[in-house]
């Protein structure tokens, strides 16, 4: 059931979205460039193991008080 007081506060969404967009801004890393990084990374990784190119994800993520670059690469089994 939908309770008005359980709705996610819009200011929390504003804060989360800002933190993410500022992480990209500060790293001077537009999301499009991240796509380039992803495909180049994949090229290298495929030389070492059977990476599944469809499930690859590269993103910036908040870890405590700093941002980290996360790359998730599923292995083909």
């Amino acid at each position, binding site marked *: 059931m939908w309770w008005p007081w359980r709705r996610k*506060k*819009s*200011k929390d969404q*504003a804060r989360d979205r*800002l933190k993410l967009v*500022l992480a990209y*801004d500060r790293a001077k890393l537009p999301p499009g460039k991240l796509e380039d990084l992803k495909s180049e990374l994949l090229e290298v990784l495929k030389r070492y193991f059977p990476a599944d190119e469809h499930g690859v994800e590269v993103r910036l993520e908040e870890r405590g008080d700093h941002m980290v670059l996360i790359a998730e690469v599923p292995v083909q089994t």
Partner: protein
Amino acid sequence: MKARAIVVTSGKGGVGKTTTTANVGTALAHLGEKVAVIDVDVGLRNLDVVMGLESRVVFDLIDVIEGKTELKKALVRDKRVEGLYLLPAAQTRDKEALDPERFTEIVRRLLEEEGFDRVLIDSPAGIEKGFQTASAPAEGALVVVNPEVSSVRDADRIIGMLEAKGIKENYLVINRLRPEMVKRGDMLAVEDVIEILGLKPIGIIPEDEEVLVSTNVGEPLVLRKGSLAGKALLDTARRIRGEEVPFADLETKKGFWAAVRKLFGGS
């Protein structure tokens, strides 16, 4: 603030730079400083009309830079407050004459030769040449920000650029805060803005209809009694002068339900 040359900036337009410059400048003079407020928005002059000095403008910043008049003659003295002067922007003239070096020299002369205690520079919006010029002589900055995503994002960009220029004494002026929206979780709170931007506030100004009224009549808000924003802007000036002024509690409860909660001992 130790900085005597302070740029008022924001990146985004329409967040309250000119209102902040006019009011903080007026308040500093009211508190005893000799203050020059400078409008650097060449072509889009506004500070004169917000301060109610538009009818007394004869010369402007470009006239001074081009040597068409003396610096002293271009300064418009505000007769309502002792020690308050405006250096207006050119409304029509070619802005090419205004470059960072020449502007820095003007500010230096105001501080070192004309006996000013403080110079407040109203920067144009954006991060282009106008901002570069306005911030060139600055030792510190007031970064005006509204608790809203686009303004916070642009403020972050501006803070990065100020730091890259070696301007280090920077503070936030969080403007247009609506405590009732913060309370119901629909507006970024002061703490959120501070956390995201990593800069301390020197002013927290509530949204106040009196701001528009004061610009309608051309009388800075800090000269009018009884307005929340006016009080907050005066407090901002006091903090700039180094006074320890606690931030006012803006989250006063209003309305029917607040009254009911209070009746039942709620807070």
